[in-house]
Every structure is written in C-alpha cells, then in structure tokens.
C-alpha cells in the first residue's frame, strides 16, 4: 500500500490490499455510537466542577447537537470519497481531494475513539504495536485502530508540508 500526492489538490492511495480496503470502507461506520462509553468519549463534559451543572446542561442542549451534525458531516464526506474506490492490478486505489483531509482526520478519529471505547481498550494496550495475530473482535479492533492511526499520520504529515 502506498500513500502519495497526486497534485496540490489531490491525495492518493494505491495498491491497497483487499483486507485494508475493507477496513477503509468501515471508517464512516456504523460504529456503536449509542453505547454509554462511546457517547461519553465522543461528547465529553465541558467541566469537571460539580458546581457547573448549568454549563453541562446547556452544553448537552446546544453544543452537542452541533457536534453531532459536524461529526456526521465529516463521515458523509468520507463515505462519498470511498465510493471512488477503484480496483486495479495489485489492489485497490483511491483518490482523496486534499480539501477533504480535515473530514478524513475527523472521521478516522471518530472511528478510532468509538472502537477503543466500544472494546474497552486501554492506554497500555493501545500503546503497544498492533496485534501479532487476529483471533477475536478485540484483536481486530486493535488492528483497525492502528491502521487508522497510520492513515491519520500520513494525512497530518501531508497537511503539514503543504
């Protein structure tokens, strides 16, 4: 699998193995977003002060709906880009408009956070290299989180030099 810059306006991935192409198609979800652990992480409280209950209520009523809409919009951008997957010799290829990189970063983060919260993956597990063997859904989630991290790293570095 190779990351490359097609032009100032377009980024590309080519020779994507079918397994990784399948994982990329899962970036927009659906992930379990209704579970309490996932929701608490995607929509954290703005204050830990017990005396700030009013702020937390206002936040839930006014800010969280905006964040829901923002996150959905990022996933929709990625979903539309993923429809451009092409099957080529040596794997799959995908072009991404450079202007969509922010949406990709956001959707990848949503996916990684949702997977980590859903499978109760902790810092010690996530700071280790990816699993050597995928034996269950938890291992697959860890692998997926690491793969999505590699995509994020590439996007950040690409944006950083542009």
């Amino acid at each position, binding site marked *: 699998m190779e990351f490359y810059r097609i032009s100032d306006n377009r980024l590309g991935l080519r020779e994507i193995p079918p397994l990784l192409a399948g994982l990329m198609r899962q970036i927009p979800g659906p992930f379990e977003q209704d579970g309490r652990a996932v929701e608490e*992480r*995607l*929509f*954290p*409280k*703005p*204050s*830990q*002060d017990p005396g700030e209950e009013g*702020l937390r209520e206002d936040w839930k009523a006014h*800010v969280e709906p*905006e*964040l829901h809409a*923002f996150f959905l919009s990022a996933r929709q951008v990625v979903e539309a880009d993923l429809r451009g997957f092409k099957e080529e010799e040596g794997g799959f290829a995908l072009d991404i408009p450079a202007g969509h990189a922010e949406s990709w*970063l*956001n959707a990848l*983060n*949503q996916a*990684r*956070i949702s997977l*980590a919260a859903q499978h109760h*993956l*902790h*810092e010690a597990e*996530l*700071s280790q290299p990816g699993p050597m063997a995928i034996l269950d859904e938890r291992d697959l989630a860890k692998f997926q*989180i690491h793969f999505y*991290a590699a995509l*994020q*790293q590439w996007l*950040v*570095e690409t*944006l*950083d030099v542009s």
Partner: protein
Amino acid sequence: MAEVKEVPGSSTRDETALDQPWNVVVHNDPVNLMVYVTMVFRKVFGFSREKAESHMLEVHHKGRSIVWSGARERAELYVQQLHSHLLLATIERSGS
C-alpha cells in the same frame, strides 16, 4: 498609622475570585495521536510548532496541560472547538 487587618471571608476575596481567569485544560487520552494533538493546538490557538509540541508533551507526560487562560466565554468556545476535534478538554477557574 493603623494596621489594616484582613477580615476573613471579606468581599475582597470574593471579588478577586470573580476576576480570576478561566483555564482551558486538555486532558490525556490514549487514542489521539501526538502529531494530531500538535496539529489541533496550532490550528485552534495559532501556536508555533514548538509551543504546540510543548503543550502536547505536557498532556502526554503529566496528564493535562493548561493551553489557554482568559475570559470564560472565550474559554467555552475553545473547549467547543477542541471537542469538535475530539480532544478531551474542560474549563476550570484559574487557581482551582
């Protein structure tokens, strides 16, 4: 000249507390990448790379970093922006 004694619980203390700025605090989490957190700090606060990396490392090693202090309304806006990038951020009264 008469000595001025501090009266415990006087209003001076309360007024000082009201004038205290609010901090925007970013907390460590196991998922966000270090390069991503640095990028978000630069984008949201306009930090230099060095300053953004310094705050990112403080979050990573100490579990939290105060990234901005000032008026409450602006602090809330910054927290909202940080949440939109999926960073764990809260506001707290300075000195709390």
